[in-house]
């Protein structure tokens, strides 16, 4: 039972890493907390549900479409919103208010459009029967979603560490002021990161019905809490630390559900409080020499 819980936890952890990755990318590059992150994820879920209902599209095809469309929407959305925010005197507080408002708006409009009924996608679309992994029997949709998450995370790694734009993105994460001083087009780099973050959230949303059971227009705040726990554990502003945060969260969640199931919902809060008290820079925070 223990091995089963740990293996399932790792698979779920990869998915949770994908859930938190976009939020951490936006925070790392823009120092903005996107409180609408969970709602973007929810939109990705509904997009997959609509693409399947209306056109019979497989979730994997939906994920590719959602990724492209959300990046295409996120890029101009950045220019519409973020530069103005960053020029304001108290940009961090204003960004919280603005994205909270955006979150409420997305939830309200989605509720009007599709109602409050929970929606799900048939698990058989991602495989039937169990998948045996290290002796643990896992539903194939979990494994499928975990693999897609791992591919998405690897894609972000390749972008950040193997491309010129990714290197410039990391430079902006390290110091926005120095990036500006060096002549980096910070807005272009940030807009792309914002689009990618929305795309990642959308892809996570496509697989939410398989990993979380169902989707509703009101799921955004719960997702945000989970994503916060994952990125705080894995270090705020460090997108790849999110992977470790996701796996720790996933394994802890599965262990809680296996041995203390009634306490499982408390896990995000407990992890957040514990990490903030013991190691506020995150488990993988890196210190640099100051002199």
């Amino acid at each position: 039972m223990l091995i089963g819980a740990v293996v399932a936890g790792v698979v779920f952890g990869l998915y949770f890493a994908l859930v938190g990755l976009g939020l951490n990318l936006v925070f790392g590059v823009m120092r903005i907390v996107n409180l609408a992150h969970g709602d973007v994820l929810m939109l990705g879920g509904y997009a997959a549900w609509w693409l399947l209902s209306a056109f019979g599209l497989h979730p994997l095809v939906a994920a590719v479409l959602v990724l492209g469309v959300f990046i295409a929407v996120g890029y101009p959305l950045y220019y519409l919103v973020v530069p103005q925010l960053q020029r304001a005197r108290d940009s961090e507080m204003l960004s919280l208010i603005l994205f909270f408002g955006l979150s409420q708006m997305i939830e309200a409009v989605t509720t009007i459009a599709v109602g409050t009924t929970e929606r799900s996608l048939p698990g058989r679309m991602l495989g039937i029967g169990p998948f045996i992994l290290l002796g643990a029997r896992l539903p194939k949709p979990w494994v499928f979603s975990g693999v897609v998450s791992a591919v998405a995370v690897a894609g972000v790694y390749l972008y950040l560490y193997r491309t010129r734009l990714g290197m410039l993105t990391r430079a902006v994460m390290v110091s926005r002021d120095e990036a500006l001083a060096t002549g980096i087009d910070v807005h272009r780099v940030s807009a792309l990161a914002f689009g990618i973050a929305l795309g990642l959230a959308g892809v996570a949303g496509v697989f939410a019905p398989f990993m979380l059971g169902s989707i509703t227009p009101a799921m955004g705040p719960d997702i945000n809490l989970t994503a916060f726990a994952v990125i705080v554990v894995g270090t705020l502003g460090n997108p790849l630390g999110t992977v470790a945060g996701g796996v720790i969260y996933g394994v802890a969640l599965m262990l809680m559900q296996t041995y203390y199931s009634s306490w499982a919902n408390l896990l995000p809060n407990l992890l957040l409080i514990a990490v903030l008290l013991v190691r506020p820079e995150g488990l993988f925070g890196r210190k640099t020499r100051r002199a």
Partner: protein
Amino acid sequence: MAELLTAEGICSGYGQVQVLWGAGLRVAAGERVVLLGANGAGKTTLLKVLVGLMPAWEGSVRLDGADITGQRTDRRVRAGLAYMSELGVFPGLTIAENLRIGGQFVPRAALSRRIEELFDLFPDLAAKRRALAGSLSGGQRKMLGIAKALAARPRLLVMDEPSAGLSPLFVQQVIAVLGRFRAEGAGLAMLIAEQNVAFLDLAERVYTLEGGRVRFSGTVAELHADDALHRAYFGLA
């Protein structure tokens, strides 16, 4: 010498607080200019206006005679201007990555050659090319900052207090490195904002900035000849 950078009547500041009151300066091609001033004189603000990191409320900035007052920093960098801030490097990136970012607008093959040239000039950095810049000592970071700023072969290197946070020994090392570029006659112009008069060894001309206004403009010898300025910057010596 042909004028490279010209700033006239610059007024700027932060929010409601005006810092610069009609400041101006000129740097000719290949010329080394030091902008002397105490803390709070407005040196950093003036440099930021020159490189496009802050807007000029009034006045103009010209590069090669073309008005660049409203131009973005990345365009100015492409035009041959490099700025070394007090931080100067990206601590969370490797030394090699810092240099590649410094030369971000240089074609890939040419940049690789340039980085190897810089590693020849800065052998301490070459030995640690994959180390994070944040792991370097203050003096080494300054050297990396200079190398990063030179990666794109700029025509004008604008430096904000390269002595900040350094011991006198490291300050002399920085001056020696910058002097080497002068000796090589690479045609590199420098504008160095400093409060440390040791940097006057590098200068062909000096500006002094006080309260956001240029008080003196001339050669180092002329600065020494002005009793009041001499006392202000060199004490009674």
